[in-house]
């Protein structure tokens, strides 16, 4: 160990001490740099149109892809479908997540709290494909719901491959994110405030609307923006539960790359989506500060 220390001391004299944190950060900065390089690649590719005679991207650069992406009816339909879907998913997810987070934070029972936490984390770690697969089994034409309906003589319903199925899958996917973003904001509200409101004669509905909701608003806004971004840009749920008829923007991008092989147009759509996503993320930062990752620990 002494020898190692000696080598380290010669290579890195104490007066270089100030550079240590930057040196520690360097690998992470380089690794994330791959994403930045990827974005540069997307931007470059978005400026090249598909040459229909050779099926290669053009050598010259043009904004033609942007014009197509913004004017073609197909992409407008897909964009509207994704945006509307994301908004519906966000509202419903928040409505469902609020009582869950509230009960989880306020319950006196440690066991119940643990159960609610485990129910949140398990699906998060199971992954989207397996969860969507579970819904295929439940909702499919020969799935559990339709078999059960058949027993009481109801003709099979088409529960899959439609818009509500995709939205339902998305809500299920987003619930853990929403609850986990709401819970800390909920914890920060002193319970005495609610007791005070109630002892002053407010019923629980008024206490919720006039005391809890305003105080938990930053958490709601944050959770809402995260859910909005994630569901707007999701690929798996529209692909699996929508069965190709309910494409969101991410599916349209995938198709441009792997079906029509129009890399330029696909890149253009991807870059536009990244821009929208960044604006939403920027809003989160503006509201919460970039310290989402930060902590108030002691530093030197």
């Amino acid at each position, binding site marked *: 160990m002494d020898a190692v220390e000696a080598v380290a001391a010669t290579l890195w004299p104490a007066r270089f001490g100030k550079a240590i944190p930057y040196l520690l950060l360097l690998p992470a900065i380089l690794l994330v740099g791959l994403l930045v390089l990827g974005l540069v690649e997307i931007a470059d590719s978005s400026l090249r149109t598909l040459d229909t005679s050779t099926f290669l991207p053009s050598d010259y650069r043009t904004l033609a892809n942007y014009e197509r992406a913004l004017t073609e009816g197909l992409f407008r339909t897909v964009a509207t479908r994704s945006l509307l879907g994301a908004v519906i998913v966000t509202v419903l997810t928040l409505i469902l997540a609020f009582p869950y987070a509230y*009960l989880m934070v306020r319950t006196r029972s440690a066991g119940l709290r643990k159960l609610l936490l485990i129910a949140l984390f398990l699906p998060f770690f199971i992954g989207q494909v397996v969860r969507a697969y579970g819904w295929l089994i439940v909702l499919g034409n020969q799935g559990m719901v339709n078999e059960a309906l058949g027993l009481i003589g109801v003709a099979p319903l088409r529960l899959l491959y439609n818009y509500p199925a995709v939205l339902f899958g998305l809500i299920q996917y987003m619930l853990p994110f929403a609850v986990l973003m709401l819970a800390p904001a909920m914890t920060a509200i002193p319970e005495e405030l609610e007791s005070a409101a109630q002892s002053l004669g407010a019923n629980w509905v008024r206490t919720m609307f006039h005391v809890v909701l305003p105080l938990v608003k930053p958490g709601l806004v944050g959770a809402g923006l995260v859910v909005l971004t994630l569901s707007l840009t999701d690929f798996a749920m529209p692909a699996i539960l929508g069965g190709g008829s309910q494409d969101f923007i991410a599916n349209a991008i995938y198709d441009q790359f792997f079906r029509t092989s129009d890399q330029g147009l696909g890149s253009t759509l991807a870059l536009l989506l990244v821009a929208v996503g960044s604006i939403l993320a920027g809003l989160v930062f503006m509201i919460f500060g970039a310290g989402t990752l930060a902590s108030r620990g002691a530093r030197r």
Partner: protein
Amino acid sequence: MTMPLSQRVVFWTIVICVLAILSIPTIVVLGASFTAGNIIAFPPEGLSLKWYSKIAGASDLWRAFGRSLYVATVCTIVAIPVGTLAGIALAKYRVRFETPIQVYLLLPFTIPLIGSGIGLMLLFGELRLLGQLWPVGIACAVINLPFMVWAVMASASGLEPDLELAAANCGAPPLSTFFHVTLPAVMPGVISGALLMFILALNEFLVSLLLVDARIVTLPVQIYNSIRSIITPDLAAISVIFIASAVVAVVALDRLVGLEIFLKSK
């Protein structure tokens, strides 16, 4: 806190619905994997392990699972040093340009996954790296890196800086201080962060889908490709791998840091 009855009814109704929505797919996949029938049916046609014995011989599924394990291992090996050093730097040192650096390090979360995936696909294509598996591991490390940094930061900020000063004061040279004081203190964060990275890479779907070709599909991609054609219970049996690994992850996370840490207000 005692809730009025009406509030209790409303809240509990919603919470039970949410619990059902969250757990039904998992329970159903588990149940389907033990079915004796050929088509997934309700009510189930009796219990059997036949789908497990069927997948035992399905070498393509096991190869896909092996590839997923490889990707997750590469991802974790890359993420541990990179995320640990960055986490320590951000938690323990005063860094100039801290806010821009944090925003930059959060890029993997703020860029939509489809954007990150397409970007890495184009980049790796340019570098002639497509068609191999290890770049998929690197990609998984990039897109989930903030989890690793966050886990390490959370435990590093709990370490008293005085401890490190004390070690130095007792004559410990910088590297010894790092290995005997700093590193053990952040270990819980490193382990839980590594666990997160491993599990998330194991079931990463979209980025895998974009970066692999038909010869080297990972297990989530294989399942995705299969459920688009026909739904048979053998996929349920293989999906149990993901459920089991998720259970392990949740238990380990609970032991290491306690799930309740996610309820703390910042």
